[in-house]
């Protein structure tokens, strides 16, 4: 077995993840290298949700009976856990949504309907980057179409970094919001938050950080980021599907208008008019994802017990090893940073002119699960003039042996299509 400094005790960790025992294609053990799409879930998270449904299931808020009080305490307790996990100044700044996409749409819509000084309209500009997930592009395109605001973006350098050389022309006095990803979901790039935030603050623009690929993998401290909004998603951080988070600065959440209307988000309703509950409830219309919040609470407990610093160190070790081994494969070209510096454990590549679909399919026959396609980041593929990539992504349960399996698998792919 390959020894790398910084590795976690994956033998112990893998016991918590039932799916990692799965076999496919006549007994081949799954090598799951698609955690950037969604992570696997530990028993602890599944048990927390099971326990909720079997013992404490009731609708939250307003119930005066025991089980409803318990359900409310569990749901709001999950909010406390998430707030602590991201070092939020206040629990009331943590909004539960259905996924990161809803979180980002929520920000875009709040700003579209806001009063001054936040209002995005035809005289203002929105800034994003070419490196974004579609979920951080399309909401801004829609906002731009609906308000007339101009959409601008940062490009990408040849080695997969944000090109900030023209930052003063991109972010200007007209900019109302700058929204960018902390970690690229296709190339793994870590982006320089500080420089962007500094410029945004200079011109008085708000900053929204898409932390979907960061929250699962490193310490996320919303105060240190100095952003105004931070979005992420539960299913990528060992939590369940069906829940996302938007953190927002309290005074903004107070000032900005609601998005979805309905039960739970109101203070008082008459047919003529309604007033809204204070944040976070103002932004949580309808029955919330109660069991999923409980699951996400258990997920951050799990991650915290392992330690986000330790997880980060583990992934750095794996990434360094994977980059080195992948570059040994003939005709393999890494799309994005081709080293282990300032990057996460997500590596995209092309393999000669073998189409990624074929790479993925032949890897699957060996039990290796990678993702192929544009990874909801088609502008990156356009930028590099490729139709798609093959992407391997690692997490706290990934091992050097799995890197080796991938490299062997790729050799087999090459021979197969030679």
């Amino acid at each position: 077995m390959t020894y790398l400094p910084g590795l976690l005790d994956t033998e112990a960790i893998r016991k918590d993840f039932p799916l990692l025992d799965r076999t496919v294609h006549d007994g081949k053990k799954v090598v799951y290298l698609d955690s950037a799409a969604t992570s696997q879930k530990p028993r602890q998270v599944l048990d927390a949700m099971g326990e909720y449904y079997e013992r404490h299931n009731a609708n939250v808020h307003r119930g005066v009976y025991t089980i409803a009080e318990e359900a409310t305490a569990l749901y709001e307790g999950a909010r406390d856990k998430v707030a602590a996990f991201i070092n939020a100044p206040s629990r009331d700044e943590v909004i539960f949504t259905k996924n990161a996409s809803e979180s980002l749409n929520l920000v875009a819509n709040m700003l579209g309907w806001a009063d001054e000084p936040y209002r995005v309209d035809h005289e203002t500009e929105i800034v994003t980057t070419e490196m974004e997930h579609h979920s951080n592009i399309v909401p801004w395109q829609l906002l731009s179409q609906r308000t007339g605001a101009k959409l601008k973006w940062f490009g990408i350098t040849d080695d997969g970094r944000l090109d900030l050389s023209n930052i003063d022309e991109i972010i200007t006095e007209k900019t109302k919001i700058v929204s960018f990803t902390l970690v690229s979901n296709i190339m793994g790039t870590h982006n320089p938050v500080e420089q962007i935030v500094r410029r945004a603050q200079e011109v008085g623009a708000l900053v929204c950080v898409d932390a979907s690929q960061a929250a699962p993998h490193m310490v996320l401290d919303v105060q240190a980021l100095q952003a105004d909004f931070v979005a992420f998603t539960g299913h990528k951080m060992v939590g369940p599907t069906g829940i996302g988070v938007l953190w927002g600065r309290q005074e903004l959440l107070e000032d900005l208008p609601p998005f979805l209307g309905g039960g739970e988000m109101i203070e008082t309703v008459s047919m003529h008019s309604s007033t809204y509950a204070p944040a976070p409830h103002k932004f949580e219309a309808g029955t919330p994802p109660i069991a999923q919040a409980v699951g996400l609470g258990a997920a951050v407990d799990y991650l915290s017990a392992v330690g986000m610093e330790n997880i980060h160190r583990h992934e750095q070790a794996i990434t360094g090893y994977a980059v080195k081994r992948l570059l040994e494969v003939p005709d393999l070209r890494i799309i994005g940073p081709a080293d282990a510096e300032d990057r996460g454990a997500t590596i995209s590549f092309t393999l000669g002119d073998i189409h990624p679909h074929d790479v993925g399919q032949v890897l699957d026959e060996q039990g290796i699960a990678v993702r192929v396609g544009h990874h909801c980041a088609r502008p990156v593929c356009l930028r590099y003039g490729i139709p798609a990539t093959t992407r391997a992504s690692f997490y706290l349960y990934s091992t050097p042996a799995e890197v080796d399996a991938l490299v062997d698998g790729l050799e087999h792919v090459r021979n197969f299509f030679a």
Partner: protein
Amino acid sequence: MYQEVILDHYKHPHGRGLRDGDAEVHHVNPTCGDEITLRVRYDGETIADVSYEGQGCSISQASASVLNELLVGKELGEARKIQAAFLELMQSKGQLEPDDAMEEVLEDAVAFAGVSKYPARVKCALLSWMAWKDATAQALSEGKTA
């Protein structure tokens, strides 16, 4: 799914390249970036040529090659039958066991039966066939065929 026949067509495609035609279409499979530009040329009711260029996975490439091999020289009515049979096979979710009658119609294309089990790849296999159908409709509406 990677039958020898498919790999053969992939590595040695039939009729690849763009040549003169009565109509040209460009089709894209947005989920995987597969693209094809395809031209048809008719000689009365007979398919005189299907020429194409594109990028994509082995399945989409091989499928275009098989299409060329199967359809060129056929009457339009016959070609439509083949196209319908191929479509049915690809939508069968692996439930259709090709028999002799089907093999008669589809020839090499029966090798794609295994692909029908993979929903993500069915679109790849159908890309050129949809393009052909579209190009033919266009050629027809422009009155290039009888």
